[in-house]
């Protein structure tokens, strides 16, 4: 079976600016796939390319195995949910939902039936004849989803659709989106700068930075085995120690950093002499134990109930954060106290420095 969406060496340039650089990936049918990255990383451009609003400068976009070159947004089996939803304010809820069917010449009775079925799906029965401005934020969100689903697209594209909602509603809508996706069973491609959204909802996530796809993996892999310095620092909290690889021993590499030589897993098989960054998660740091040790002076402690975050000044430029949970939190050093911090090499990761060689 052909991939739902297949990008092959897609590059998009605006004048001298490269918005997307050589993106190649394949999204499976029925997958919930996210593009995660800071604003301006090219994820929205890529989404608009898939939906047909932008033609790629180079490369091929295939949907369901078919080359989409020269096919406008109205001739592609995709539906896009806009950041601001873009519901038609002059149409009723039902007319919004079935607009895609109306332009395909579906009869009025048929459309009405579809509208009611979809309103049931999104748990808004009886709202067919309401006006858009009678809906709350969350209801509008669901109508936008129903409108996109009505045209039975092979791929549903979502451009940060939750960003306009307040926090509580946003978390609620994450679950709903995932539930809807499971039920309709089509491919969802989701764009967000919020890693919580990407990690909780998606089967796989593509992390983008400055137009480049840095890594494609499921959430757990992104967290435990980031391939690049950007992914390591963007996904989750992380402590980075830049330096140079001084020794390699099987799976483990030693990095000479500002706080001393530290060892970690060398998944990228870096050679001696390469610029690298060693990353240790705050929860992997402990006080006074572990084989890799360095000195730190406690600065601030933020108590958060189950977790406590403590920052330390070290001989490096960046402060180091330690997260302690449960009992470990009881032994928090007081401000100004000098301690030895440690970790296990298996919980640390050595990745190439940003701008360094791509292995």
């Amino acid at each position, binding site marked *: 079976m052909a991939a739902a969406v297949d990008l092959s060496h897609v590059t998009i340039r605006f004048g001298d600016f490269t918005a997307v650089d050589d993106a190649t990936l394949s999204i499976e049918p029925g997958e919930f796939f996210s593009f995660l990255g800071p604003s301006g990383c090219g994820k929205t451009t890529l989404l608009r390319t898939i939906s047909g609003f932008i033609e790629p400068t180079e490369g091929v976009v295939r949907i369901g195995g078919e080359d989409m070159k020269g096919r*406008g*947004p109205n001739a592609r089996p995709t539906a896009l949910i806009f950041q601001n939803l873009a519901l038609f304010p002059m149409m009723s809820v039902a007319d919004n939902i079935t607009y895609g069917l109306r332009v395909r010449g579906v009869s009025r009775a048929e459309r009405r039936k579809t509208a009611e079925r979809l309103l049931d799906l999104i748990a808004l029965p009886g709202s067919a004849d309401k006006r858009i401005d009678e*809906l709350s934020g969350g209801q509008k969100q669901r109508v936008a989803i129903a409108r996109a689903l009505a045209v039975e697209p092979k791929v549903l594209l979502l451009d940060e659709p939750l960003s306009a909602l307040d926090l509580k509603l946003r978390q609620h809508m994450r679950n709903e989106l995932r539930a809807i996706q499971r039920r309709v069973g089509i491919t969802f491609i989701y764009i967000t700068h919020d890693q919580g959204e990407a990690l909780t909802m998606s089967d796989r996530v593509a992390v983008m930075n400055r137009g480049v796809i840095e890594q494609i993996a499921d959430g757990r892999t992104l967290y435990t085995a980031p391939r690049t310095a950007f992914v390591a620092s963007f996904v989750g909290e992380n402590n980075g120690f830049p330096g140079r690889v001084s020794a390699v021993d099987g799976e483990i590499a030693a990095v000479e950093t500002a706080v001393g030589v530290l060892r970690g897993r060398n998944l990228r098989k870096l050679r001696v002499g390469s610029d690298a960054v060693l990353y240790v998660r705050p929860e992997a740091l402990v006080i006074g134990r572990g084989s890799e040790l360095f000195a730190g002076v406690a600065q601030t402690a933020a108590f958060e109930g189950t977790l406590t975050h403590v920052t330390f000044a070290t001989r490096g430029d960046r402060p180091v954060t330690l997260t302690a949970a449960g009992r470990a939190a009881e032994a928090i050093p007081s401000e100004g106290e000098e301690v030895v911090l440690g970790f296990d090499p298996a919980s640390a990761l050595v990745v190439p420095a940003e701008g360094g060689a791509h292995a």
Partner: protein
Amino acid sequence: MSAGAVGRAILGLYIAIFFVYLFAPLAIMGITAFNSSTYPAVVPFEGFTLNWFAALLTDGEMLTGLRTSLWIGLLVVLVSVPTGLAGALVMTQIHARARSLYYLVVVSPVLTPGVIIGISTVVFWRDVTTITGLKGLYDGILMTVLAQSSFISAYCMLIFLARLQRFDRALEEAALDLGATHTQVFRDVLLPFLMPAVVSAAAIAFLSSFENYNTTTFAILADKTLTTVLAGRVRQGTTPALSALAVLIVAVTVAGAVLYEILKRREDARARVRRKAAQAADDAGLVPVAT
């Protein structure tokens, strides 16, 4: 008396004088419409009469003029509103380099005296008739419609431009994405959004055409509109029948304005209720999707 009170008194007096200046001539004209004196006068008030209104109804020339004016007004609406709309849409899409020249050309009729628009139109179509031999083109009503439309289209364009500034392009993209053709997007999304502007542009176009004199008097040739008939009458001498006509026009206008105001207030109130209902839905908590 405090300085503030003096200020307020001066302001009140000023506003009073301003509106007396604005309304006194019209009010006096209104009174003369009901005075049976054959010369328009307030004093002596010789007796209340509606004869001057009745006289209007039997005034054949004026009624013909009125009919011509209504026809021209209607045609001007039919020409100016679509033209102004096209002008505004082109303005939003035209290449940046050509935009200022384009703007200069299409806005210039607003800043050109009406007489000149009338003159240039007549001169142009007379020559076109001579060159092409099509005598039908040199027609007073046709030329009046074209001459008036040249600047009324610009009014309409400015109205549309103001509304277009608030248009969300994502709506067009959403419709396209759902499979609509470009023509369908225009018909289903852009036009409905612009509808309020279409209505006000049509109203402005009709009223501007109906009351126009400067352009019309040059372009109309042998035909007569209500305003050119009026101008002839007023120059010949004054009769209270003209006051009666003015009273009618003011009455119709004020009735229209009041009606508009009432409708607008009712719509505002409805919108407030809707917003409140939507807010309540959000506050009432979230209805989960059935699983």
